[in-house]
C-alpha cells in the first residue's frame, strides 16, 4: 500500500484512467518499456502522439469542410489517427475512430461529422487527464512515474 499521499493519488488517477475506459492494456505495454535507460519513455511517446494526432485532427477538420466529402481521404486520415491512438492505448478515441471509418465506408456524412465532434471531445478529455497524470508523476520523481501493474 502506498503511504505517501501523492503516490496514492497517482496510483488512483492511473487506475481511474483504466477503469473509466480511457486507456487499455497497450498503455501498460508502454509502461513496461520504460526503465532506467528510458525513464520518461511513456511521456515521450504520449507527447509524440499529441503532435501526430493534432496534425491529423487539423487535416480532418479541413477535409470535413469540403463539399462533397472525400470519404476515401477521410478514411485514410482516420486510419492513421486510429493507428497512433491504438499505439498508446487511447481506448475511447480508438472506438470513435472505428465508428468514423464505418460512416466513411457507408458514405454517411452526418455520421462522420457527429462522430468526429465526439472524437475531439474524447481526445481533449484524455489529453487533459494524461497531462494531469504526468504532471503529478513528475512531481513524485522519475522512479515512480510508471506504476508497475501488480
Amino acid at each position, binding site marked *: 500500500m502506498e503511504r505517501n499521499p501523492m503516490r496514492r493519488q497517482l496510483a488512483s488517477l492511473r487506475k481511474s484512467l483504466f477503469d473509466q475506459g480511457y486507456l487499455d492494456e497497450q498503455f501498460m505495454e508502454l509502461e513496461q518499456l520504460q526503465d532506467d535507460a528510458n525513464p520518461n*519513455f511513456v511521456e515521450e511517446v504520449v507527447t509524440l502522439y499529441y*503532435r*501526430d494526432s493534432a496534425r491529423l485532427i487539423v487535416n480532418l477538420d479541413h477535409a470535413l469542410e469540403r463539399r462533397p466529402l472525400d470519404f476515401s481521404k477521410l478514411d485514410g486520415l482516420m*486510419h492513421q489517427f486510429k493507428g497512433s491512438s491504438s499505439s498508446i492505448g487511447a481506448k475511447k478515441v480508438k472506438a470513435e475512430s472505428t465508428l468514423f471509418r464505418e460512416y466513411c465506408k457507408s458514405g454517411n456524412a452526418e455520421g462522420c461529422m457527429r462522430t468526429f465532434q465526439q472524437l475531439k471531445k474524447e481526445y481533449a478529455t484524455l489529453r487533459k487527464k494524461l497531462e494531469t497524470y504526468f504532471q503529478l508523476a513528475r512531481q513524485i520523481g522519475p522512479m515512480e512515474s510508471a506504476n508497475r501493474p501488480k
Partner: protein
Amino acid sequence: MAHTLPSSDQSSDQDKWDSGGLECKGQLLIKIVMRNRLTALVVDGDTTCWVLEQELLHSYGVQTLGVDNSRDAVDLIASDAEFNLIIIEKILPVLNGLAVTRQICEIGVRCKMLEVTACSRESERQAFLAIGVDVFIERPLDPEHLVPILRELDGQ
C-alpha cells in the same frame, strides 16, 4: 530521411543503428532470451507507432533502423542493407504500403516481412499476403505477435 529513436542512448550513433539489452523485461513483455542479434527495418510514417515499434524491438535485443517513408525504405533495401525482419505500415508517404512491399519483394528480399496496420479489411490482408508479406497484423504491434516471429528468426 532515416531517424533513430530519440533516447538518452550513450552509444555512438554515426552508423544510425540502435540497440537494446538482450534480456527483455516486465510481465507484459513475454520473456525470451535471444541467441542472435537480429536486425529489423521499421517503415512507418506515424512517429508514435514507429517509436513504439522500435522500442519494443530494442527490448528484445533487436537492432533497428527506422524510416518514415517508402522511398527511403526502397533505397535502403536496394542498396543491399540486410535485415532479418521488415515491419511495414500500410499507409505511407510517397508510395503506399502495398506498392513499396511489392517493390521490396521484387528486389528479391528474403527476410521476414510483417505488415502492421490500424484496421484491415480481408481483401487488403489477402493482397499483402499474396505479394509476399509473411504476417499481417492489426495495430498495435505487441509481444504476442512479435515473439513467435523473433523466436523463429533466432532459430529457436
